[in-house]
């Protein structure tokens, strides 16, 4: 609800407030602005209360996220992978938990998935736009975006991935410089004090039973043509390392970053489910 508060102030004042509402309102507003500005614009255009607009926008962004993973899955493995990815996406408890509340992550996720889609399609301009918008929508999603693009750029030797990453990073740090007069991320309290929640068995279950069940069936397909599945592998590896950053003595935002690992796992599960379908089609036993 606190993001809705800022959205309300934007609609009332016509500008982003200089100071935040959080924890007394004593600090300058530094949160990346795209989600708030966009929802505020929708509120003003429609004449709807910001709280109602934010709630309705959450539904729209959630649908967009399912559509975005369909596009990414289709680009990676064909129509069936796209359909299976969208299907497993909407059945995932972890993803559902983080796409039913009015906060920036619910817009960040579809933007991030679109960035990956455009990178795989080698559409650099659109990849840059999606990456920059992701960076200006949600900081945590931007970290995931950056990590995945880095791994993908190395794995697939794709320089365009690095260009998109650099543009996203530049956009984020430009915003931080403007809002906080500082490029220092490490002094942020949540990072300095290591805000995090442990990843438990319950988290694994929250990925979704069927994504977990079908994921192993994806292994032969990935092993046969790992270059084709470079984005999937990059997504999986990067998000696993981020979610379990305590392995490296970091221990920050583990539970938040786990959501993105769940999305990657859904993609892998979709590839596995599609492989089963193809095998059944090949035997003419449907």
């Amino acid at each position, binding site marked *: *609800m*606190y*993001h*809705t*508060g*800022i959205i*309300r*102030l934007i609609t*009332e004042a016509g500008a982003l407030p200089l100071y*935040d*509402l*959080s*924890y*007394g*309102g*004593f*600090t*300058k507003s*530094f*949160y990346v602005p795209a989600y708030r500005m966009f929802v505020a614009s929708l509120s003003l255009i429609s004449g709807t209360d910001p*709280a109602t607009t934010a709630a309705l926008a959450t539904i729209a962004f959630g649908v967009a996220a399912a559509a975005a993973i369909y596009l990414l899955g289709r680009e990676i493995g064909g129509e069936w992978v796209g359909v299976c990815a969208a299907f497993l996406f909407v*059945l995932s*408890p*972890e993803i*559902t*938990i983080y796409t*039913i*509340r009015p906060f920036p992550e619910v817009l960040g996720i579809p933007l991030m998935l679109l960035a990956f889609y455009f990178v795989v399609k080698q559409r650099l301009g659109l990849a840059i736009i999606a990456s920059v918008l992701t960076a200006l929508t949600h900081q945590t999603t931007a970290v995931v975006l950056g990590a995945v693009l880095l791994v993908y750029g190395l794995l697939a030797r794709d320089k365009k991935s690095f260009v998109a990453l650099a543009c996203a990073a530049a956009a984020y740090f430009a915003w931080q410089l403007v809002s*906080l007069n500082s490029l220092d991320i490490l002094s*942020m*309290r*949540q*990072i300095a*004090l290591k805000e995090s929640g442990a990843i438990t068995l*319950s988290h694994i*279950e*929250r990925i*979704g*039973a*069927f994504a977990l069940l079908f994921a192993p069936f994806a292994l032969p397909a990935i092993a046969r043509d790992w270059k084709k599945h470079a984005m999937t592998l990059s997504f999986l590896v990067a998000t696993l390392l981020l979610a379990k950053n305590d392995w490296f003595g970091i221990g920050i935002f583990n539970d938040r970053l786990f959501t993105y690992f769940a999305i990657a796992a859904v993609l892998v599960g979709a590839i596995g489910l599609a492989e089963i379908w193809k095998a059944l089609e090949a035997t003419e036993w449907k």
Partner: protein
Amino acid sequence: MIAVALPALDYHVSPWLNPVVLPGEVEAAKWAHGTTGLFLADIFGGELVMGFAGKPSLVGGDWAANARAPEQMSDMHEFYLTDSADKAISIWQKYNASYAWFPSRQVYAGYGWITLNEDKMGDPRFEIAYSNSEVRVYKLRSTS
């Protein structure tokens, strides 16, 4: 697949659908839109005030840029727990607050769920600014 997945979805997601705040608090938050100043509230009440009224709360929201966030959570926790009106007023004045939020539920200010102690708000230095069946909002009584 759906017959298996949907109950699992319901099991895991349902706790997150609990709004925590009471319907009466939503009405109070709408009333708060016409106020000015800082609210002393728990994280859930505070974010409700932010969302519906656009007013700051001592705790709640994003604490990334506030070095004093743990201290504020501790003070808010103490504000709700203490039975001393003097202690409550010292915390109130420390932050130059305008209102205090007392809902008819347990509260969470950052250090665990607690049952708030509202007896101290009967002190004559406090008065009720707004109330309904589910929440009372206090202010300091004007001495002028």
